[in-house]
């Protein structure tokens, strides 16, 4: 955590709130565990030994800092200068490793031996399985059955790393149901188990704690952009599902008023069709997975199933700090369709030799849109949150590559 303190206060153990958003809406049985995590985290972040161990792992195990790449040829299509923050090059292939190493060290500090986690695309599951292998922790991953099929490669990776993968067969059989099942496991086994939550959402302290563990992305990127171009970027762009990679790259830029922040949600077939995962562009304020935030819900508060080609964004809620950044106007959120994301996925592959995760392709599609708006003098920083190796099956079907 070479990070000083986060740019955005709030979400601390005192209130757990970001404006009206956040809080804790969970069974009382889990409150002591959440209090324990919050207290241990507050203590650990002040402990130089903990911070030094995490910094060492981030540098010498996870491969940080990740590079900043000028995407000249891709930028020609965007009509602006595009700088890519290369989280795809971090160990395990995405930004998820930062949060996972932080929480795994915390698990060891609490003295728990078993870790559970949910995963959508499998990126968080792979990262969690990796950290558990490294620290000798038992690891159980809940994954929607639909996702185990579309992300079979990551299931194999998790198993190879020694994790048990439990396919979740109820509800929509995707990320939302994997989270439900992980909470059920946690409430049953909370004594010896840490729930290593994968995104900056859920009940306090998770939104603020996960943000703190991933905010190194923006801290690095801000310094790298200043070194490269001698000024701050005009816009910072990320995809938003639960919202951890976006909080990670946004946070350090929040005090920089001249820097616009854009989050791109998964628009699926288009927000107007109702088949999407854009909780801020097409949802409303409610309580979901332990926090007040934007959620896809009907007029009586029943969750509406989300749809996205990207398993990692296929989630009907969003982290409460994003909800607050939206309402306060500090960040702008838009939706990108499956088609626009897959076009950007292909374009980055062909122009830069970088195959991004389909999640990250939503941010790239957003950058193409913004380039046209901001003009050729603009510099746009895009978080390439992960790499696309895991998405080859989806890409083969979409582009007909097997034919």
């Amino acid at each position, binding site marked *: 955590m070479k990070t000083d303190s986060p740019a955005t206060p709030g979400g601390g153990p005192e209130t757990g709130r970001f404006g009206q958003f956040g809080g804790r809406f969970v*069974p009382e049985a889990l409150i002591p565990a959440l209090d324990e995590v919050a207290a241990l985290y507050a203590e650990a972040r002040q402990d130089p030994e903990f911070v030094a161990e995490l910094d060492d792992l981030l540098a010498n195990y996870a491969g940080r800092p990740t590079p900043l790449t000028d995407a000249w040829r891709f930028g020609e299509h965007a009509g602006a200068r595009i700088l890519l923050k290369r989280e795809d090059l971090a160990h395990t292939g995405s930004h998820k490793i930062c949060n996972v190493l932080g929480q795994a060290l915390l698990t060891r500090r609490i003295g728990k031996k078993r870790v559970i986690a949910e995963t959508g695309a499998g990126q968080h599951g792979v990262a969690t399985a990796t950290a558990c292998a490294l620290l000798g922790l038992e690891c159980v991953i809940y994954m929607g059955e639909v996702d185990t099929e579309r992300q079979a490669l990551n299931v194999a990776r998790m198993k190879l790393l020694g994790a048990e993968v439990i396919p979740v067969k109820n509800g929509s059989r995707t990320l939302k149901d994997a989270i439900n099942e992980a909470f059920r496991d946690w409430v049953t086994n909370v004594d010896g188990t840490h729930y290593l939550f994968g995104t900056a959402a859920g009940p306090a302290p998770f939104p603020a704690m996960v943000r703190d563990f991933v905010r190194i992305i923006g801290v690095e990127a801000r310094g790298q952009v200043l070194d490269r171009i001698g000024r701050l970027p005009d816009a910072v762009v990320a995809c938003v599902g639960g919202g951890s990679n976006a909080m990670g790259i946004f946070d350090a830029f929040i005090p920089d008023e001249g820097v616009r922040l854009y989050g791109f949600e998964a628009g699926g077939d288009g927000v107007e069709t109702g088949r999407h995962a854009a909780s801020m562009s097409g949802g409303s304020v409610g309580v*979901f997975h332990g926090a007040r935030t934007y959620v896809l819900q009907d007029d009586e*508060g029943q969750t509406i199933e989300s749809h996205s080609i990207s398993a990692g964004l296929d989630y009907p809620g969003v982290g409460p700090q994003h909800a607050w950044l939206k309402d306060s106007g500090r960040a702008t959120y838009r939706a990108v369709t499956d088609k626009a994301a897959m076009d950007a996925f292909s374009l980055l592959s062909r122009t830069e030799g970088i195959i991004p995760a389909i999640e990250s392709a939503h941010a790239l599609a957003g950058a193409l849109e913004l380039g046209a708006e901001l003009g050729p003098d603009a510099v746009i920083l895009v978080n390439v949150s992960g790499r696309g190796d895991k998405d080859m099956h989806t890409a083969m079907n979409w582009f007909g590559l097997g034919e």
Partner: protein
Amino acid sequence: MTTLAEVFEKTRGENRAALFGYLPAGFPTKDGAVAAAVAMVEGGCDVVEIGLPYSDPLMDGPTIQDAVHRSLENGTRIADVVHMVGKVAATGAATLVMTYWNPIDRYGAGRFAAEFASAGGVGTITPDLTPEEAGPWCAASAEAGIDTVFLVAPSSTDARIQAVAQRCTGFVYAASLMGVTGARTTVSAAAEGLVRRTRAHTGLPVCVGLGVGTGAQAAEVAGYADGVIVGSAFIRRLLDAPDEAAGLAAVRELAAELAEGVRSR
């Protein structure tokens, strides 16, 4: 309409625990749920807890998840829940709704409390609404004259028990174990200690739920608690029955067995 206070006055007079039966509205069908709740009352339930089905029941085990899923497939809406409240309250049983928070939040706390109360409902149980977040709901409920019940768990510290109990009216719901809903072969050993710790912070009745499903277990819990709450075991009877009539007979039979249990402290 019978209030919770009247129920506990009666059960104290009879030196027994109160019997609560839980069933989601709309399961197995909208009418079938009403019939099953009536069968519970006929068999001896003092209080009926009507579940308001929610798409993401993260405190519930497979049995209630299954029932709730079917209820939502049946198109159950809040109007159906309120309708069922009216039907069940007419039997003379005290009628509660148990619900996750978001449906009420979305519907409007004041609107839900008013409609529920005018149908004859006397209180709600909200398992994911913590004392810190419960202020608006407690205010709306007080306005409508209905009780607010919240949960304590074996993991709760004394400070948390006190905070939860302060928000409760009617009774305090003690979750007998760390886990999700569902019948277990034995009642958790943690339950009795939790009831004792809770009594140190409140004069309200303390009722025990989670994992209770037989007459013998009801008798055991009645030995130290003011009420015994049974849910999954009733649902299991309905799921396993070959037809509706057999299901209702099985529900009535289980209620009678449990009613005998709460009378043999």
